[in-house]
């Protein structure tokens, strides 16, 4: 999540660790990070300066920070033209900064939460499940690239670096649940680009209220997906996000919209827009463009604006999300129409949010472009 947006994981943490939030399923009004985490984030490191990131080492965990995630989303196509969207994310959440050494092998400092989703665009189906496990006793695993290759496992789901790779990529992703499964190999592709100020992604004016954030915006992905039947060979483009932090969003932020778009001309575009309680856009929202050559251009605040239109209401009425988006910018000149490939790509797991595959159409720098991407929308649950 991108960007500063650690709301889902905060909400999940909140639900899981049960500190003080009134209702984690509504990561909006009553849920603020300060309340949620209380004093429990003491003892953790804070992101205060641009980090000195080294790869592949930093693809591994940073337990000195409280929260961390490995996020993969991708758009896939089968040989027969069938389109799919895929998401697999592993969250690491520390339960406490300092824990005593304990003899029990079930004693854990961190827990792993994982979300997996698959959108069968042409079959008009969407699947999503979650897994949780303590990072102890084999219930979940997390290993860095320098510990024999990256490895994140939670119950039956895994993201495991291929032995002959660089310790992180290529990465084999395996997950599934009721009615769906995927077995995919991702990367390598465009190298990591550092978001924000050389990887330091500020979230507020307070020092340390920031995260370390980098992305691999265009990496090939291929393998098989299974949707209630035989496995189907697929290939496409994935986007990997890595972020870790300790502090969280401000009290007046109610949610965000995050875009990761991959255009046909090789350009990738990232935008997160933080929404405030009063409906305005937080000044800490940011966008960036990664050229076909892999160079990143971080856009100044307010340069790129996303405007919603239409509305999609979840079947149970528990959430209302924008149905479409229009992204506009004057420099560089840009006007993009973002349309979900399926209206319902909502994840109703421990927390509730919308994350799904989208199609993009419009023009960039005067030229017509099209593409695919992923969109995440949080904080749209209706008050209950």
């Amino acid at each position, binding site marked *: 999540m991108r960007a500063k947006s650690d709301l889902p994981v905060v909400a999940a943490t909140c*639900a*899981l*660790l*049960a*500190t003080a939030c*009134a*209702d984690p399923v509504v990561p909006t009004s009553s849920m603020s990070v300060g309340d949620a985490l209380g004093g*429990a984030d003491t003892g953790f490191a804070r992101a205060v300066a641009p980090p000195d990131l080294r790869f592949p080492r930093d693809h591994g965990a940073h337990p000195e920070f409280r929260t961390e995630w490995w996020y993969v989303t991708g758009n896939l196509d089968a040989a027969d033209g069938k389109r799919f969207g895929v998401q697999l994310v592993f969250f690491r959440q520390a*339960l*406490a900064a300092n*824990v*005593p050494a*304990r*003899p*029990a*092998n*079930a*004693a*854990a*400092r961190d*827990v792993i939460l994982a979300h997996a989703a698959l959108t069968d665009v042409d079959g008009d189906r969407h699947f999503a499940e979650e*897994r*949780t*496990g*303590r990072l*102890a*006793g*084999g*219930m979940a695993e997390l290993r860095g690239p320098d510990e024999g290759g990256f490895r994140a*496992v*939670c*119950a*039956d*789901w895994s993201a495991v670096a291929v032995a002959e790779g660089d310790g992180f990529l290529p990465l084999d992703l395996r997950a*599934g*649940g*009721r*009615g769906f*499964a995927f077995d995919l190999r991702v990367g390598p592709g465009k190298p990591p680009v550092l978001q924000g100020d050389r990887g330091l992604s500020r979230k507020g004016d307070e020092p340390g209220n920031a995260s370390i954030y980098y992305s691999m915006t265009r990496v090939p992905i291929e393998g098989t997906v*299974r949707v*209630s039947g035989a496995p189907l060979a697929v290939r496409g483009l994935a986007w990997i996000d890595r972020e870790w932090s300790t502090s969280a969003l401000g009290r007046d932020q109610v949610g965000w919209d995050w875009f990761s778009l991959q255009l046909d001309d090789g350009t990738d575009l990232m935008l997160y827009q933080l929404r405030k309680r009063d409906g305005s856009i937080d000044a800490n929202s940011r966008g960036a463009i990664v050229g076909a050559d892999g160079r990143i251009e971080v856009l100044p605040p307010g340069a790129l604006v996303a405007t919603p239109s239409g509305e999609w209401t979840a079947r149970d009425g528990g959430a209302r999300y924008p149905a479409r988006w229009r992204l506009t910018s004057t420099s560089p000149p840009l006007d993009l129409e973002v349309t979900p490939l399926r209206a319902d790509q909502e994840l109703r797991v*421990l927390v509730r949010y919308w994350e799904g595959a989208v199609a993009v159409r419009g023009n960039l720098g005067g030229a017509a472009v099209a593409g695919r991407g992923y969109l995440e929308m949080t904080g749209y649950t209706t008050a209950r």
Partner: protein
Amino acid sequence: MKLLLRQGVRHHRRHPLQTLLTLFGIAVGTAMACAMQLAQGTAERAFDRAIEIVAGTSTHTATAGPDGIELERCAALRARLGGRGVAPSITAVVRVPGSAQRTVLRAFGVDPLADADLRPWASANARAGATPLPVAELMTVPGAFVATDAVLARLGVKAGGALPITVAGRPFVARCLGALPVAADVGKGLDDVLVVDLATAQEWTGRTTRVDRIDLRLAPDLLPDGMDERAALALAAEQLGPGVRIVEAGARSGGLSKLARGFRINVRALSLLSLLVGAFLVHETMRLSVVARRRSFGVLRALGARGPVLGFVVASEAALLGLVGSVAGALLGTMLAQVLLDPLVRTLNDHYATFELHGVELDLSVLAASTLLGTLVAVLAALGPAVAASRVPPREVLVVHAAVSVGRRWRAPVVGAVAALCAWLCLSTTGDRLIQGYVGTLAMMVAAVAFVPPALGGLLAVAAALVRRAGPFVRYVVRGTAAARDHLAMPVAAMVLALASTIGLATLVGSFRTSVAEWLGQVLPADVYVMVPGGVDERPRSAIAPEIVAALRGAPEVAESTTYQRTLVRVRAGRGDDDVELVGMDPTDAVKRGFPFVAGDDVAGRESMVRGESAWVSEPLSFRFGLAVGDPIVVTTPAGEATLPIGGIYRDYSNERGEVIVGKAWFDAHLTGGVTAVSLHVHDGRDVDAVVADLRRRAADAAEQDVQIRSQRDLREGSLAIFDRSFAITGVMRLLCLIVAFFGICSAFASLQLERGSEIGLLRCLGARPAQIGGIVLGQTAVLGACAGLLALPVGALLGHVLAAVINKVSFGWSLPVVQVPVSAAGEVVALAIVAAVLAGVQPAFRFARMRPAEVLREA
């Protein structure tokens, strides 16, 4: 019809005492049956609830004996079963040394991240209102726990508070995080539970890489695509390895029903007996009612009423009596249940569980069933009188009826002989069929009842001979009673039955206690015993720290010692295949020689066990599995199966599920497990209490573990105290039975006297003074009471023997070498019978004495 019913009502109104006593008899019988059902039901539900809450919505449970299952195996299984519906847990018995209130609790170690599908209350997304489970602290703070508000209140602990506890004798500090946010029904099942994280439970139990059990929900909604329950089971069995047992969730429930079986058998038998006494009372009342109204029945028949209609009216009256009595009984039962609940829970807690019950749960179906049972019994009891009423001939109007149901004296002995034969057949071939044992006992009681009339006749003849030289009144008293013995026989039989049952019970309990005391002497030959204070719901299987074992065995006061290594293994032998307690023993000569064998008692059998060439099995196990000396038993060990022949069968009252003893060498070669108990022989001449005190110091210095070091005397007394507590409930029930018997005697004898109005009137006309009349009435009831009491003695003794030798054996698998009728119980019964009978005579005596002769005659 209406006329008939009105007449019936009038009859009962004119004999209020008799009717009331009848109602009382039915009420008490129903109340006992109902109270027991309610108390039992409440306890069972609490127990099941505790199991259910802990087991959650699982379909299967995997366990692996005392060593548990590696957590990593559980994790691997979870991964292969699709990540859901696999919840590991650990249970440990926790003692709270400082707490005055309740000192034993269960710690339930869960994984809040794995529990969502099975135990929503213990999972990360458990929420009640705005207070979710504090998962982060629970998982990261060693010793952290949450518990229901009720438990916290009982312990007097608040959020943030510390609670010193011991687990298997080792001290720990439990830290309270606050109240567990659960709904009331879940909370009830967690009434003695500290909910902790797996890690804390691992640390408390010392099994730092293992869990006790894995609850599995192998349901289609949680299993991976294409995997069905059978495939999942096969996978689980393969993943967890051969030492792990996977059983269906249903196999667990009903645990209490099995555990408290002995208890229930006792009480159910008693309540049925009291109902039987009630039935006799109804029979008596209705019989008298029919006798009194015979003439009017005759008139009605002459006027055209059909016989069956008259019978139906009598049956309806009985049904009404039964209904009123049993409704009252059901109400009384709800109160009585509260009284029974306490000893019941104490019994269960001594042996099996640690749960707490706060009140009887009213179960309408039980109340309805008890009422129905009471009514039905009343109707059945009135069938005889109803048939008699339907057969009243119209000419009855014209004849004066002298006696009721005379004749066919041959019937009773024939019935008795058939019943006795049936009893003998059933009881001599009972085997392990409890129902057959009951049928045999019932047949024996029927036989006893059938033999009461001739026996009563005999007794009265003897009495008449004895009072030959006494005054005319005394002779009249005895002879008058003898003359009326035919219609006295039934009520006396009822009394005999009630009194005999109390003697039988006293015999069983008394003999059992004597046998246990004797047995304790045999199995506890050493002077000092050491063990870890186990949970009340588990046998002492916690290992004693090796340092303590060494320190105690090496103490200068100790001459020699025996170590015991107790564990749970799967044993296949005879017709059985089950988890069984197995003890590895390294006996001293005294222990070896003194072991109470019931079979295979020879030097070779005793020696071969020590050498590891045979095993001893306890009597309950041999009974349950059908084993004899020489049979092979197959023990599942980590290395596979190992077979041993049975070298001997020993008496054991401590474990009705049975156990196996093997030599220490064999145990160490095949199984793992530390020393769980040590018995020490002290050098001759030492003061055992002083030695115990010294050994306690040595143990405390050796390691930080709270072990129990008790002298043989202390242990023996403690065991007998538990025994007495277990049977306290039987005492309560026996008392109730005596009360029923008392009122039964009062009712029946009072009504018998009232029947004799004409005779008494005649005596008055002949000049008998009121005081003499009173004397006659009281004397006759006293004679009857004494007869009933005397006849109850042999019947009770016989019943006691059957209960001890047959029912007890079938229920628990253990035999009692000593069966004796307690003199006190016998005396009690005879005295009670006489006192009740005399009291029964008081009211009729007064009434007749005060009446004018003409009145008495008219009344008759």
